[in-house]
C-alpha cells in the first residue's frame, strides 16, 4: 500500500507530467485561460489517461513483448490510443450523452496529446505491474489536472496585472509556467 502511495505522490507532485516533465504543453497553454475549460479538460484527461494507460500496458505486455516487437512500441501506442479515444467518443455519445456533452469537445484534443503518450511509455519503461500502471496513470492524470487548474487560476490573476505589451498573453503565460515549475522543483527530494 505504501508503495502505491509513494508512486502516486511521485506522479502527482514530484514528477508532475506538465511541470516537471514538460509534456502536454499545448493543452496546458491552450485550455488554461479560463477555469471552466481547465476543469473540463482535467476531467477528460483523467478519464482517457486511465483507460489508455491500461490498454497500452496490456498491448505491451501480451503482444509486443511476447512477439519481441518492442521497437514498434511508439507507433503501436499511437494507433491504439487514437482508436481508443475515437471509440470512447462514440461510446459516450450513444450511452452517456450527458458526459459526452461535458467532455465532448476535449476528447479529440486528447487524441494526439503527448502527455497521454508519455505516461503510457513511462508505465512500460518503469516496468510497472498492471495495478501499478493503473495507479500511475491515474496519478499522472490527477497531476495534470492539478497543474492545469492551478495554472488557470494564476492566469486569471495575471489578467489583473499590468503586463507590458510584448509580454502579454502567451509570453507571460510561459514565464508564469516556468515559475510554477520552479516551485514544483521543491518536491524533488521528497521521494
Amino acid at each position, binding site marked *: 500500500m505504501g508503495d502505491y502511495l509513494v508512486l502516486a505522490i511521485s506522479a502527482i507532485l514530484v514528477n508532475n507530467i506538465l511541470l516537471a516533465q514538460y509534456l502536454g504543453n499545448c493543452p496546458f497553454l491552450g485550455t488554461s485561460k479560463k477555469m471552466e475549460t481547465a476543469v473540463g479538460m482535467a476531467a477528460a484527461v483523467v478519464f482517457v489517461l486511465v483507460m489508455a494507460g491500461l490498454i497500452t500496458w496490456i498491448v505491451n505486455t501480451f503482444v509486443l513483448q511476447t512477439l519481441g*516487437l518492442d521497437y*514498434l512500441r511508439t507507433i*503501436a501506442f499511437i494507433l491504439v490510443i487514437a482508436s481508443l479515444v*475515437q471509440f470512447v467518443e462514440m*461510446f459516450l455519445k*450513444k450511452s452517456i450523452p450527458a458526459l459526452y456533452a461535458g467532455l465532448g469537445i476535449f476528447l479529440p484534443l486528447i487524441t494526439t496529446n503527448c502527455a497521454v503518450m508519455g505516461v503510457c511509455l513511462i508505465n512500460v519503461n518503469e516496468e510497472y505491474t498492471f495495478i501499478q500502471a493503473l495507479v500511475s496513470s491515474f496519478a499522472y492524470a490527477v497531476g495534470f489536472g492539478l497543474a492545469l487548474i492551478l495554472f488557470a487560476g494564476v492566469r486569471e490573476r495575471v*489578467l*489583473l496585472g499590468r503586463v507590458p505589451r510584448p509580454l502579454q498573453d502567451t509570453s507571460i503565460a510561459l514565464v508564469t509556467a516556468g515559475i510554477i515549475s520552479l516551485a514544483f522543483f521543491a518536491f524533488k527530494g521528497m521521494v
Partner: protein
Amino acid sequence: MIEALLFMLIIGALCGTVLSFASKIFYVWEDPRIAQVENYLAGANCGGCGFTGCSAAAAAVVEGKAPPSVCAVAGPEATTSVAGVMGMDPGSAEPRVSMNPCDGGDRAEDRFYYNGVNTCEAMVAMFGGKRVCQVGCLGYGDCVRICSFSAIKMGPEGYPVIDEVACVGCGACQRACPKDLIHVRTMSDRLLHTNLETDPLAPCQQTCPAEIDIPTYIAQIREGDYEGAVHTIRERNPLLLSCGRVCPHPCEDYCRRGVEDEAVSINQLKRFAADFEMNSGKRLPIACAPDTGKRVAVAGGGPAGLSAAYFLRRLGHSVTIFEAMPKLGGMIRYGIPEYRLPKKTLDWEIEGILNLGIEARTNMRLGRDFNVADMEKEGFEAIFIAHGAWVDYNLKVEGEDLKGCFKGIDFLSRLASGEELDIKGKKAAVVGGGNSAIDCVRNLIRLGAEEVSIVYRRTRSEMPANEVEIEAAEHEGINFVFLAAPTQVIGDADGNVKQLEYLKMELGEPDASGRRRPVPVEGSETRMDLDILITAIGQQPDMSFKNMGPGMADLKITRWNTFDTDPYTLQTSIPHIFTAGDAATGPSLVVEAIGGGRRAARSIHQFLSGEEVKAPESSLFKRHIDESIFKQVPGVEKKPRSKMTELPPEERVKSFEEVDKVLTEEEALAESNRCLSCCRVCYNPDVAA
C-alpha cells in the same frame, strides 16, 4: 522485418474493424441536414460562432438555434447554401450586428490606470468596474482584442467603435464585455427590446412612451445622416410623419438641457427627418425578418393597430388589419384635423406601412361585420384589438339632443370624411377642455363660424389639452369661457338649439388628482346664445362586440370600459387576444398607442413562439433611472431654441392649410447642436463647440 509489417497490418486492421463495428453499434441518428450544413461551413473549428466547432454550429442551425449566417468565416455564399439546405429564404436571413451604445462619456482622466489594471475584465474584478456610471464602457478594449475580424477599433475618443460592415456577428465581443454593454443583436432582437434599468438611456429616451433612441437620431441629424435618423426613429415608431406633427412630446419635459435652458425641440427634429424622407420622393427600404408563416389579425387600424401590424410584419408574421372605417388611421385621420396633419401626409405614411405586405380590409367592423370567432376560424393564431375610444360621453343635461347639437368625435369624423356641414356665419360653442374640444373650435373657426366659444368647467391651467394647442386657439380668436358648468340646452319651437345655460363655478379644495375642484356658485345661472353646440368632454371604448359571438364571456373589462390587462404585456384575460392604445388605456396619446402597439407585438411574438408572455426582468416601463434625473446641469450655456414657422393666424383661419411648418435644414442643424447627447449620467455640454 516481416513480423513488424505483419504486426502493423494486423493491429491496423483490428483497430479499423473495431471502430467500424463501434460506429454501427453506437450509431446515433443525426439529422442528415447537419452534415449537409457542416459541409458549407468553413471547417476551421475556430469557435468564432460561439459554438464548439463546426459540427456543433451545424447542429444548432438545424435545431433552429442559430441563423444560416452562423459561420463567421464562410461568407455570404455559404449563408445562401445553408439557407438552401434549411429551406429558408436566404435574402432575408437576419444578419447579426454588434452595437456599442456607450460613447464613453466624460472619462478623460484614467482614474484607475495606475492601480495597474489594463483590461476591462480586471477592472470589473477589482473595482466592480464602475468608471463613470453603473453601466458604461470602461474603455480598456477587451472587445477590441477578442474580435478576430478587426471589426472593432479603439476610436480616437477612447471607446470602441464598431465597423458594421466588417462585423460578422460572431458575438465574441458581447461575451468579452464584462459590462454587458456591447450586444450582438439581430434586427428582430432590436425591435423586441424595451427599456431596461440597466440600459444606457438618456432621460428623454426614458420618458418617450415609444422609447425612441432620441440622442442617436439627433446626432445623426447633426452629422447630416438624415436617412440614418429616419431608420433610428423607425426602429421604434412607424408613424414619424404623424408623430412629428401632433405629438405633445413628453420627452421634452425631461430633456436635460431643459433643466438650465429651454428643452431641445426633439419633436421638431423628428418631423424634420420624417419630412426629409417624404420630400426626397423615395421611400427608404424597411427590412423584415424571414416569414414565420404565423397569421395575426389586427382589429382597428388606428395608431396602435398600425404600430402592432408594422412590428409584427417586421418580425416575420403575416398580418391582416380589419378596420371599421373606409380608411386607416383612426383618430389621427378622423379626429385630428387637416390643418394639423394633412391627409396627404397621412396617406403617404400609411401606404409605406402597408407596403411591407400587410393586408387591410376596410369597412369591416368588429361586432357588426365579423366577430372574434370568425377571425379564429379563419386561422389567425393571435388577435390584436385596438379599436380606440370613440364613444363620446354625454353631458347628461336636458336638451342635448336638439338639432344643431353634436358630439365631438362624431363631428370631427364626419368632417374628416368629407361631409359638408353648414357652419358659416353661425354662433358655436364647444363644451370641454381636452384636445378634441380644441380641435373642434379650431375647425369651426375655419368653417366660417361667426363666433366660437369654448366652455370649460375649470380654468385654463387645468385644461388637459396640449399647451401649444390652447395657445394656437387663443391666437385664432376663440372665446374662452372658464369656470362654467352646463345645466341645460334650450331650443326653439322647431327643435333647433338656441341657448346654453350654465352655472358659474369657483375653485375649491384640491381633489384626488391634485386639481382644485370647481364648486358651483348658487344662483349664477347664465345663458349664452348659439346655433351649434358640440360636446367634447371625453370618450370611452365601445365594447359592444363582446356581446356578439361566442367565447367572449371571459374577456375582462374595467369600469372605464377599457380592456383589463397588464399594462406592459397588454395581453387580455383571453390569452390569444392582445390590445393597446386608447382601448387599453382610455383616451391618451398617439405615441402611447405606438409604444403599446410595439409591446403588444412583442407579447404576440412571445405567444406565437410558445414562450411565456411576460415583461423582461428589470424593465424600466414608465419609470426613470434615478441617477439620470438632475437638478442642475453644470456647463450648459443658454442657446435659444429654433422656432418653427407658423402660418399667421389671420391667414390660417381662412383655410385648412397646415399651420406648423417644418424646420429648415439650417434651423434643424442648429437645433441638433443644442442636444447634449446625454446618456444615463454623462452629457456633453460642448457638442456644438
